[in-house]
């Protein structure tokens, strides 16, 4: 869309900036990334009263333009760099009317950059409730800029704001809030002269920040450094005007962060979340799965059989289905996360858990991704963006896939059912249930131990501090909840989807082609009368696909890796399943079904179970799935990074192939070691 004017939204965190952005742009927005950093770039469009189209860019919330994090330095770069693709014509600064004093620091900094400014005085309703009276006209007069009182949550005053945007000046008329000339007049003048900058405040900021700014050339930066030395000067910080505010959520905090009830309530909420992700998503997931099966079936019937049809149906569409089934879990987890953040509860969780999590190198905010990992690592890793500290975030990303996700559940239930007797101990505990619970607890412990190890390996770039606002409790904004469900699902489908589909296609090729004329021979063999006359069409086709899988490249690979996996107690059949479930763990059960030529009926799980139970080792005559093998296999799946979606999302979130590669490597090594130990101990 072509825009006539570019407007940037700037404001402190928790001032309702995103709400205002959503109100102004509606669904007419897109989310990208600022180049080179993992900071979301939200751009949207709105039509002004005079018919012009305004491009609105939502900059990250910040307390000051003096940058201490990636988010904050983006704000200064966008505002100060005249050649940046996003440099705005106008800045709308959102100030929290209920806490004006603190918000004015950011205002004064932005205003002094001499970009035209309109002030949106948000949360007027909250301010009124708290008996804060602001004389808007006097305020506007003092600042020298238009001030529009709004209530973004209630959609009040936004029309007036659009009006103010359309009438905004092309030039900045605001009063200076700082007299830069008193700080370092000679240096500021020299920088301004040499870099051709006529705004003294911008020159001063460049002097402060030149080391971290990407838009300055090295020569410019060095020259600023020299000038700084030449006119050595002292730091000065300023502050203006007054107002007052009062929090009223103390009563809620007394309960929610209570020594005892605080934890009880937190665990209750987590349990509820976990249950919801599990149970609410199962129906839509089944629906999506069934819909894809239906599409695959009908395409198989309508399209002529051949490699192209098979590639489309069994490769691409099957891969697509593997991506789509995650949507319900992602949407539900993000609904919860955005409700918890919106209400202000998330910062209390951080507050309560910080000490505990810090001991193992994590952060109070790591709790939610880790627990979310019980459902699915993919949305949880996307959720680590709330962790500002780089090192804490990386460690959280690295260990989240260790937590038992829902894709491991079918594997565990199948294997536990095979080897653990279904009886009760101590009256009420079922042994199979205990084994499953054990796997869950084990995964959480291993995540914590690995996090603790990473704490010593990773070098933090920034100092870990924990100065954080505890915002007032509020009702969640349901619009935002829906936006975030939609955003995250979309980001996942489009960005992780590509990788997953690519890997699915490779696996399809491996599983449906074999070296030489092996496949032709199988077809030949099974077309002889001794098979066609003595077997039903159904069981014949199952036998054929089982034979083909064994002779496919995947089967050949399964045989090839047998020497490597034999110490773990695995045979080549399990090897094939390991390879095919490389992209998604849950494929294990399906592959087992194909290998043991089970038909794809409703009782698939039951029949796989029967076949695996009866499976005998041809050399020894002993059952293949002993206690040792089953637990070795479970240990393997507990640690191995058998999930293309996670690999893809880790890449997306870290912007560097090194991270998913390290993660993949360490998890595979752990998987092998744990499986080996389990096999040796239990054998």
């Amino acid at each position, binding site marked *: 869309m072509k825009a006539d004017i570019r407007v940037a939204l700037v404001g402190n965190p928790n001032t309702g900036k995103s709400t205002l952005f959503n109100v102004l742009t509606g669904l007419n927005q897109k989310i990208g990334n600022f180049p080179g950093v993992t900071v979301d770039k939200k751009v949207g469009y709105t039509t002004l009263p005079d018919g012009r189209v305004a491009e609105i860019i939502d900059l990250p919330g910040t*307390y*000051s333009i*003096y940058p*201490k994090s990636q988010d904050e330095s983006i704000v200064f770069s966008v505002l100060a760099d005249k050649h940046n693709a996003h440099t705005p014509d106008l800045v709308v600064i959102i100030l929290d009317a*209920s*806490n004006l*004093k*603190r918000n004015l*620091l950011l205002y004064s900094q932005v205003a002094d950059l001499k970009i035209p400014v309109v002030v949106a005085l948000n949360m007027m309703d909250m301010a009124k409730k708290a008996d804060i009276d602001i004389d808007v006209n006097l305020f506007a007069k003092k600042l020298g800029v238009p001030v529009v009182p709004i209530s973004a949550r209630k959609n009040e005053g936004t029309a007036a704001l659009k009006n103010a945007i359309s009438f905004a000046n092309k030039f900045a008329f605001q009063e200076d809030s700082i007299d830069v000339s008193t700080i370092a007049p000679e240096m500021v003048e020299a920088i301004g002269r040499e870099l051709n900058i006529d705004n003294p405040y911008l020159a001063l900021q460049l002097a402060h920040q030149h080391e971290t700014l990407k838009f300055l050339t090295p020569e410019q930066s060095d020259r600023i450094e020299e000038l700084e030395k030449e006119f050595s000067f002292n730091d000065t*910080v300023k*502050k203006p005007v007054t107002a*007052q*505010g*009062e*929090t009223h959520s*103390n009563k809620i*905090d*007394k309960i929610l*962060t*209570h*020594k*005892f009830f*605080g*934890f009880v309530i937190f665990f209750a909420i987590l349990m509820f979340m976990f249950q919801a992700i599990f149970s609410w998503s199962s129906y839509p997931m089944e629906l999506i799965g069934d819909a894809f099966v239906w599409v695959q079936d009908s395409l198989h019937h309508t399209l002529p059989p051949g490699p192209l049809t098979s590639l489309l149906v069994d490769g691409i569409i099957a891969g697509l289905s593997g991506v789509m089934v995650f949507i319900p879990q992602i949407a539900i987890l993000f609904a919860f996360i955005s409700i918890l953040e919106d209400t202000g509860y998330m*910062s209390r969780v*951080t*507050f*309560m858990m*910080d*000490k*505990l999590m*810090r001991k193992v190198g994590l952060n*109070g905010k790591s709790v939610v991704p880790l627990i979310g990992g019980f459902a699915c690592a993919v949305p949880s890793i996307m959720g680590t963006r709330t962790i500002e500290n780089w090192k804490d975030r990386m460690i959280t990303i690295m260990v989240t896939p260790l937590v038992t996700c829902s894709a491991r559940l079918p594997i565990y239930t199948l294997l536990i059912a095979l080897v653990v007797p279904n009886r009760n101990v101590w009256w009420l505990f079922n042994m199979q249930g205990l084994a499953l619970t054990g796997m869950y607890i084990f995964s959480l412990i291993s995540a914590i131990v690995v996090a603790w190890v990473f704490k010593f390996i990773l070098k933090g770039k920034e*100092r870990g*501090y*924990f*100065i*954080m*606002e*505890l*915002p*007032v409790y509020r009702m969640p904004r349901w619009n935002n909840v829906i936006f975030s469900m939609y955003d995250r699902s979309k980001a996942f489908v489009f960005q992780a989807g590509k990788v997953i589909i690519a890997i699915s296609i490779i696996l399809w090729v491996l599983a449906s082609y074999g070296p030489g004329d092996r496949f032709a021979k199988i077809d030949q063999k099974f077309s002889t009368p001794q098979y066609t006359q003595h077997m039903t069409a159904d069981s014949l086709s199952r036998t054929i696909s089982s034979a083909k899988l064994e002779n496919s490249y995947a089967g050949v690979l399964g045989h090839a890796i047998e020497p490597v996996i034999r110490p773990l107690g695995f045979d080549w059949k399990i090897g094939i399943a390991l390879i095919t479930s490389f992209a998604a763990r849950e494929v294990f059960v399906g592959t087992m079904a194909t290998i043991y030529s089970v038909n794809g009926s409703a009782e698939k799980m039951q029949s796989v179970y029967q076949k695996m139970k009866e499976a005998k080792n041809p050399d020894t005559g002993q059952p293949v799935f002993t206690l040792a093998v089953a637990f070795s296999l479970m240990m393997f799946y507990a640690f191995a990074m058998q999930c293309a979606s996670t690999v893809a999302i880790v890449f997306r979130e870290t912007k560097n192939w090194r991270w998913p590669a390290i993660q993949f490597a360490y998890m595979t090594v752990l998987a092998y070691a744990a499986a080996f130990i389990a096999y040796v101990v239990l054998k």
Partner: protein
Amino acid sequence: MRLSQLEVGETGIVKEFTDLEMSVKLMEMGCLPGEEIRIERVAPLGDPIAINVAGYQLSLRKREAYTIVLQ
């Protein structure tokens, strides 16, 4: 007297900071010299503390509170 030495419910007035980097962050968030700070509560496990300053609540670790010198 450091901020970390106050008990819950007690107040103090900010005098200065001992850590330059931390002080910038603190001042941006409203902890300016001359401001009154009240200890609102302590996290259940005893570390971060919640303070009330400039009309809103901040949470910070004890180690960070130690860098704030009170009058």
